[in-house]
């Protein structure tokens, strides 16, 4: 019991407050995005999102209470389960919007690819902790195993197809490798290898797959799909102006010009209604969360804690950067949710698990004083 009290007294209340605050903004925003839909009689999206957040908080408690060093011991096991679920999707998965991403069980659907984002962080942390990396950074041969840890789920997710999530896995991998260090020679070799592999891989893609990728970089090619989203999104954001149109007053949003506005394009709703000022405040909010995460990482008492918290923090950063970048029309539309703001159970639960890990590491450093 004493242990528990110690945990409680050292609990990272500020992080929890940050998360809850951003979630609250998210709920308001989804309320607005779904406002015009409410007449249709279905359960309002914001209520569902509230439920997801509640469930997410329970998961957060779980990932907080189990000592992360114990979690680390089971990292590969957790990774295998994650991978198994991914294969399950491949075989039995539910297809929506032309992509096979969901496992449906009972009334719930779940996206194992979301979970994978977190579990590769755990697996990579375990690996780099086991293989003490020299000061000069790791060599190419030490990167083979971590490369496959990421590459196998990467291929499965790419096949679904879910380019966005696959990309996030790569970014997490690259971030962590840079963080633990890589020798210059190895880095150059890796880059050279990638440059050779890309055209080769391109060669093996089917025509429609190539087309899909090209559309990402040139939305004009598809004015019915991606191009339409981007244009409508830019108009929505831009029309918000400096101060925004006000809560529930976004005309782009309320008139439903924007498809998928409650998921991937949720930021356009926010920017339209709250303007430049609101947008900057939200980004500052995310920045604060990210810096807090890096602080936890810096102060962690062991390498595992450092890598896990660094990985989770970078996951948040990349998702924020790519999602908002795509809403603003400067990055290709790849389908990545905006953390805590996009509607969706899988994303919320996985993020909450991640936040739980951060709190876990943050709190336990006081208990591990040497």
């Amino acid at each position: 019991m004493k242990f528990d009290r110690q945990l409680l007294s050292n609990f990272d209340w500020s992080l929890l407050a940050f998360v809850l605050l951003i979630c609250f903004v998210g709920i308001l925003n989804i309320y607005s995005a779904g406002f015009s839909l409410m007449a249709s009689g279905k359960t309002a999206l914001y209520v569902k999102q509230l439920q997801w957040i509640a469930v997410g908080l329970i998961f957060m408690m779980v990932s907080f209470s189990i000592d992360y060093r114990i979690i680390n011991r089971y990292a590969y096991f957790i990774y295998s389960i994650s991978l198994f679920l991914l294969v399950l999707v491949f075989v039995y998965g539910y297809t929506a919007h032309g992509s096979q991403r969901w496992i449906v069980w009972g009334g719930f659907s779940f996206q194992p690819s979301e979970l994978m984002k977190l579990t590769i962080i755990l697996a990579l942390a375990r690996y780099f902790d086991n293989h003490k990396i020299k000061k000069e950074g790791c060599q190419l041969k030490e990167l083979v195993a971590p490369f496959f840890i990421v590459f196998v789920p990467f291929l499965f997710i790419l096949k679904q197809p879910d380019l966005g999530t696959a990309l996030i896995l790569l970014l997490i991998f690259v971030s962590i490798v840079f963080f633990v260090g890589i020798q210059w020679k190895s880095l150059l070799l890796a880059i050279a290898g990638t440059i050779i592999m890309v055209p080769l891989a391109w060669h093996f893609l089917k025509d429609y797959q190539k087309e899909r990728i090209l559309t990402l970089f040139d939305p004009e090619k598809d004015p019915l799909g991606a191009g339409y989203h981007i244009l409508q999104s830019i108009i929505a954001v831009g029309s918000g102006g400096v101060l925004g149109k006000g809560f529930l007053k976004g005309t782009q949003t309320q008139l439903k010009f924007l498809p998928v506005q409650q998921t991937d394009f949720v930021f356009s709703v926010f920017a339209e209604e709250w303007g430049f000022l609101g947008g900057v405040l939200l980004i500052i909010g995310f920045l604060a969360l990210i810096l807090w995460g890096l602080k936890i990482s810096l102060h962690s008492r062991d390498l595992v804690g450092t890598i896990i918290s660094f990985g989770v923090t970078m996951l948040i950063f990349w998702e924020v950067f790519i999602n908002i970048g795509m809403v603003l029309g400067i990055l290709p539309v790849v389908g990545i949710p905006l953390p805590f703001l996009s509607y969706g159970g899988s994303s919320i639960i996985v993020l909450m698990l991640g936040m739980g890990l951060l709190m876990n590491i943050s709190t336990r450093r006081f208990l591990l004083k040497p």
Partner: protein
Amino acid sequence: MAETKRQLNEYDSTQFEQRFKIAIVVILIGLYILVFRMWHLQVIRGPELAQRSENNSIRLRKINVSRGLIIDRNGIIIADNQPSFDLMFLPHRAKDSRFVFEQFKKLYINRKLAIPSNLSLPAESNPFIPVRIEKNISREKLAVVETNALDLPGVVVQVVPVRKYPGGETIAHLVGYTGEISREELKREQFRNYSEGDSIGKFGLEKYLDADLRGKDGAEQIEVNALGKEVRVLGRIEPIAGHNVVLTIDFRLQQIAAKALEGKTGSVIAMDPRDGSVLALVSAPSFDPNLFNGGISYEQWDKLSADPLHPMENRAVTGQFPPGSTYKMIVAAAALQEGLIREDTKFFCPGFINVGNRTFRCWQKHGHGMVNLHRAIVESCDVYFYNLGRLLDVDKLAYYARHFGFGIPTGIDLSREKAGIVPTKQWKLNKFGEPWQLGETMSIVIGQGFDLVTPIQLLNAYSALANGGTLYRPRIVDRIETSDGRVIKKFMPQPRWRIPISAANMEILKYGLWGAVNERGGTGYALKRKEADVCGKTGTAQVVGLPEDEKLRRARYVSGHLKDHALFVCFAPYNKPEIAVVVIAEHAGHGGAAAAPVARKIIDAYFELKNMRTPQDLVALGKKQDTTEVFR
């Protein structure tokens, strides 16, 4: 615990400080880019974009593309397009959708027009997505809607190309038809490029060649003002016209074949045995593929699918029949090639034969007397082939039958083709759990046993007999062209294999087939032309198993449904065969009497059409083509 402590003491996260700094710089740059872009959009371009959002907005407009044409070998159009008119409703143009719908109904009731059965208010979810009220409306309705356009805000007429099959029933099974893509189909990966409301080939060549025929719809992203008027086009994808398909079919011959089979149930196919090109393919009874153009009504569909004669079934490739005496050629080929008999091997036919404790009868009750192979083919003597059946192992026969293409699909470009059955000892054991009986071989040698063949298989096998032993994959599509006539794909004749029968033996068989038509007493004598150039074989496939009882045999002839299937398969001319024809008439009686005259009409027509192609005729034909704008 001590271990952990040591580790903890050793660990110093400040070694990463440098990298934390780099990470923070990357993060700050990233987020700064976002803020900068937001500033650009919201502050600099803010007023302009706000304006655009106010009188927004941007709409998507589909540019429909016409399906490619299907054309016969002489340029006659088999599948064409014509405009049809769909009534659409744009919810955002009407202040009150309910009111407009009431107006619309009133108008229809006043004019005594049928109100579309599935007329319902569109969902409120997206006012910018047009809703289809009625498909393919009549000219009368079109006029009514157009003249009352002012009272019906939001109701617009959309011109959509739909299929027109000038040949109608004549060629229905071959071209097939198109229809709107179903929800189930939309879910499949192969149709990922299709969207709701798209037309798709549902049957026949329309289905088989859908990817080529379809083309790609274009689209325009247009900006409209508050009144819904188009302000400018922001983006455009050009539609890609569907490709034209040129068939090996000769539509004139197809028409003659359909006419010749009129009133009968069955199938006629004509083929060029030199390369497997199908010249005509008819299945009867047929249906009108034009029924499906504007969406078939439930009553019509029910009527078609409940018809006991199954008009929607393409008997040419899915009908499986006992081959009857036409199978004797395969038996003869096997026996010759295996060296069991020679050309001059004779058997005595007293009108029956006893095998084991059973008696097998010849169709000629009084017997044929002493017959050699040639006469046995000419007169289709059952007893001669019973004797071969005693010599031939059933598996050996199956080996040759398979090489003639039986028991496996021919690979023709039409879906749901059946494989037929070539029984072997193993087959019987698997199927019935019983060993093979010699009596069953007796049934097989005269084509009345377990064997089942499709008309196209039978024709293909005889085509191989005609061309000296090459089995082709039947070819219907000759080439695929762009709408301006550039050839994209050319389909070459596809020889599948050579049948392992020597040239000398082939010649013996071919001569036998010549005799069956041109010699006195031949079963196909009805087809004898003055040129004496046709070779052919009759067949009569018994519907009821071999009857022991004469009374039953007579009863069958009376009550249509139990009557035998009449078969005839032939090719011409004898020296250099260039056309082969198969005729199967269900429940029509004897092959020579019921099927041969049909084949005769097609053979006659073929040579007539061929002789017509003098230079002058071609000029005349060319003129006709110009007026129909065949090669657009």
